[in-house]
């Protein structure tokens, strides 16, 4: 039963959003039918879904969109339950790594508490705590988040040192194109390139133009092909989801498998 409900809800939801995007804003209807449907013009159908020329398929789109957003937000609640099931149990039974779980749960509870309390009163103590210390541009969370992301700079440097080695023709091509693109976008690169090739046959060539040529000509074609692949794969995945073809594993218990 549960499986059927989910199947039909997903199918109807999918087909609604597809048609809403594809159909014209108003679907033409004969004037006589339109007048009959409108009646005295006060009914919900007349007010929201009937225009001057015909039927407005997306007449309730704003409400349906809000409903979808609200359903999506419910995932937050699911996330909370999952965290409590995994880390709460680990903490309660003092299993290995319980200290980290305690930190996670404490952080989550403090953020929820301060987040709820600060609503409507940004000037309150908790409002300031949330707005400045936790989430402010110079606050705890953005600082930690920036620090995590900035680690990439160090990993990229060591990865480049280890990976960009001329061990084959392809590797050499990759390395030289990467070098040219890098040099073409940094001030030192332009100065460096100009200084080296000032007197040679390449004196009229700019590293900026070389970089642009690589990005516009070589890169665009390759990336379009990748994007097309993504698109087709996405379409296939969306179709599977729309037809609930991937939900077998969720219902194994129900089916007694």
């Amino acid at each position: 039963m549960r499986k059927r409900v989910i199947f039909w809800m997903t199918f109807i939801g999918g087909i609604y959003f597809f048609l809403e995007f594809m159909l014209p804003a108003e679907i033409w209807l004969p004037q006589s039918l339109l007048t009959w449907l409108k009646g005295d013009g006060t009914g919900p159908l007349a007010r929201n879904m009937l225009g001057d020329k015909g039927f407005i398929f997306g007449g309730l789109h704003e409400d349906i969109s809000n409903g979808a957003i609200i359903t999506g937000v419910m995932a937050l609640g699911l996330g909370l339950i999952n965290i409590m099931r995994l880390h709460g149990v680990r903490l309660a039974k003092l299993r290995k790594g319980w200290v980290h779980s305690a930190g996670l749960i404490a952080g989550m509870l403090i953020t929820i508490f301060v987040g709820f309390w600060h609503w409507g009163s940004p000037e309150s103590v908790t409002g300031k705590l949330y707005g400045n210390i936790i989430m402010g541009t110079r606050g705890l969370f953005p600082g930690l988040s920036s620090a995590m992301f900035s680690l990439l700079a160090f990993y990229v440097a060591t990865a480049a040192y280890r990976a960009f080695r001329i061990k084959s023709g392809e590797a050499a091509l990759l390395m030289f194109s990467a070098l040219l693109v890098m040099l073409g976008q940094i001030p030192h690169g332009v100065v460096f390139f100009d200084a080296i090739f000032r007197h040679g046959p390449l004196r009229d060539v700019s590293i900026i133009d070389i970089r642009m040529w690589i990005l516009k000509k070589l890169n665009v074609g390759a990336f379009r092909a990748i994007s097309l692949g993504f698109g087709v794969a996405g379409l296939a995945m969306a179709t599977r989801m729309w037809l609930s073809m991937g939900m077998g594993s969720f219902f194994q218990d129900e089916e007694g498998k």
Partner: protein
Amino acid sequence: MGEAREKEFWLLRVDRRWVYLAVAIALAGPLIFRWAMPPAKIGTAEQFFEVAEKIEGGDGKLVLIAMDWGPGTQAENKPQTEMLIRHLMHRRVKFGVISCYVLAEPFLLNLPKNVAADLNEQYEGTGKTWEYGRDWVNLGYRPGWTIMVQGLAKSEDLHDYFKTDANGTDIGEIECMKNVKTIKDMPALGEFTGLVGAVQVWLQFFNRQEHRPTYLHGCTSISIPEAFIYLDSEQIAALQEGVAGAAYYGQLMTEKYVEKGLGKEPEKASSAAVAMTSLSVAHFVIIFFIAIGNFGVLWPRIRRRLGGGTAS
């Protein structure tokens, strides 16, 4: 395996901590000493400046700026967004900031406010002022991504769609929103992000059959290759490429709006130019290590060919 590693030329096994240290010094030096080199000329930034220069302003028009970025990519997206905000404020084009990314919330509030404070200080005594509500509106974080953008584009009454700004003020009471009713009153969209798929959502859904805003996009360096496909197909009118684009855009802004005496005093070295110089030095460190690695690969071969022994 260990034996093979022992035989590796020493240039091939530089400890990663030396690489980390070199990168840290290269990045920190220019940031600490506020060293800014003139940025490299970036053609796309020039195009961005020209497009932003032509955006129509006036009553009943609002440029929407989607700040879909957070602390993780603020090093690149923040100067990009700041430059467009500064440009629009200079041109007196009204704008609204919005985000589909929850971590952007503090930046939605503070970035336009800080730029306005900076301009108010710079133009003090000239009678020119910039203030919230009249020059910009903070529409806040809006959940729902695709559905939100679709709804926004289709809405026949944006006052009803948004209801309030981020501070809880009724949209109808905000001066710059008074005559903005639908997407048709939005001549341009500035979308800044480091997130995969974000720009595609805006490109696909933020338009109508009868109106397609001018799309301006700012991306992080890692997503430049992908952004070029939309620039090439003219789906986006202009692109700011990472912090390099922001740095050059900042220079164009200075040339146009500060050096001609419109501002009271020349602006300090922009944060984008300093960040770019820092990155520039770091790029050279990376190139240096790539060269070392390749020398380590080639040198033993050269020595063997020349009849020498194995390197160690």
